[in-house]
């Protein structure tokens, strides 16, 4: 039986634990903006592109005889997903009608690229399994350091600039009229999504990264109102699910990504139930102008 002390002292478990907390904190931050922009599937597309990056990293690693062979897998995933994020944002900006097609191309191209390139690197698609579905045993100290740096970046930008990012995602027209850097914000959110995909894929897996961005936000929406409260609640749900899922897989031989995502789905269902049984809030009468005070500006 593994004791809590073993979990904290063993590198094999401590690294995944650190990354699980970081994923729980960061994924819903980015997910809140993606849900607001109605781009919930962007994380999925980027997860697939990241697989091509993993295979490319493997290929370069084979060329330079890196040890272990997948030393450059995560840096490769980072580069590929950031480039993919910038491409999808570019397509979104120049064409409003074809962004779902662009996302689909990311999906298919990403997974196909990963399978083909890993073969060129001398590996097999089995080598990608850990990245597709997540794995505890493959997490290294380098992964933990990279993930920590990425998580700090995502949190500093995603939470620190939440006022700006939420204003632009909520109403681009008002943001443009107010002189806000709309294009910069859109690119920032896409890049933040790419960073989150990269830091999450080791444990959760590329196929399920997006779930951790989106489902906790959907669960939070059942419980609270307002943008800031939704983000904070989603972060709390995701941290509990990430840690809880990981601890379950320490004691039961199950894939961590799947368990974590199932817990978030359970949280969403629980949120639905809570919302259904909670007494409805009384909605005050609407339409009356109510008392008003002077609006004279102070030039």
């Amino acid at each position: 039986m593994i004791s809590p002390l073993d979990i904290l002292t063993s590198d094999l478990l401590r690294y995944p634990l650190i990354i699980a907390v970081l994923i729980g904190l960061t994924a819903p931050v980015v997910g809140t903006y993606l849900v607001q922009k109605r781009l919930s599937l962007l994380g999925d597309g980027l997860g697939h592109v990241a697989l091509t990056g993993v295979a490319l990293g493997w290929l370069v690693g084979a060329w330079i005889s890196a040890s272990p062979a997948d030393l450059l897998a995560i840096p490769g995933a980072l580069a590929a997903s950031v480039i993919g994020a910038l491409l999808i944002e570019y397509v979104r900006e120049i064409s409003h009608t074809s962004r779902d097609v662009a996302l689909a191309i990311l999906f298919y191209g990403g997974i196909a690229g990963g399978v083909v390139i890993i073969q060129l690197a001398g590996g097999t698609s089995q080598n990608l399994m850990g990245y597709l579905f997540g794995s505890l045993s493959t997490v290294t100290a380098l992964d933990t350091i990279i993930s920590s740096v990425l998580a700090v970046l995502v949190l500093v930008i995603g939470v620190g600039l939440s006022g700006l990012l939420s204003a632009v995602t909520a109403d681009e027209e008002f943001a443009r009229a107010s002189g806000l850097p709309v294009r910069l914000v859109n690119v920032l959110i896409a890049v933040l999504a790419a960073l989150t995909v990269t830091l999450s894929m080791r444990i959760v897996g590329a196929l399920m990264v997006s779930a951790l961005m989106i489902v906790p936000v959907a669960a939070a929406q059942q419980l609270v109102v307002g943008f800031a409260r939704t983000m904070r609640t989603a972060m709390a749900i995701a941290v509990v699910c990430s840690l809880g899922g990981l601890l379950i897989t320490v004691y039961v031989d199950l894939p961590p990504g799947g368990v974590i995502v199932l817990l978030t789905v359970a949280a969403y269902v629980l949120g639905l139930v809570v919302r259904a049984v909670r007494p409805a809030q009384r909605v005050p009468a609407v339409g009356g102008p109510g008392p008003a005070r002077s609006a004279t500006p102070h030039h």
Partner: protein
Amino acid sequence: MSETMPAVIEVSGASVLRGGQRVLDEVDLRVEAGELVALLGANGSGKSTLLRAAVGILPLESGTARLFGAPVHRSTAHDRLGYVPQDSAEAGSIPATAREAVASGLLGARSWWPSRRDERVLTALEAVGMADLASRPITRMSGGQRRRVMIARALVREPELLVLDEPFSGVDLPTQELISELFRELSAAGTSILVVLHETGPLTDDIQRAVVLDHGRVVHDGAAADRPRLHPGHGHPEDAAPLDQCLGQEIHPA
């Protein structure tokens, strides 16, 4: 006035293409400091397009647009502008509370950290009679209440120029009166106002100049009472409104 101060809005020879069709055709629009100008016209006549081009949301195919004497793409001029879009676009999938929505109005080209606790947010909500609903998500409000929140979001910027696209749309008469009274106060305090209207309504006596558009061209720029009589159906065919909506709009009593 114009010799010493630049016009707050100056659009010259503006043309805009949409879907291959010219929705604005060589339009000029000038709003002087302190003026209350109404932009009128039938559905699809180009009013909202002109408004958006004037504040830099829509790019011009040709012509120029200036805000406070500076090219409209220069973002610092936008800090002096309060804008209220046509629809309650501020909804998103995660609805903001009224307080959050209004706080976003504190953002500017160089101020990226608004505070929902800023007392100016509550003051602006009080100005439109919505302080009691500050914590309510805007999607749980009536159309009229949402319009008032959007106006508060513009007012919190303490703008020198207020630009509004159909602020009375979906708003009941008492609220129209409330909003009109706000505009009167702001105008008396020197705020310039450019407002797109379907009907002049409670502002009829306050409008200092009316600019009327028809098929993307300015057909009148002068006193509201002298504006030409337009017929239903005038406007851009793509945006043609149902006949029952056109009746009663922009048809000046003989």
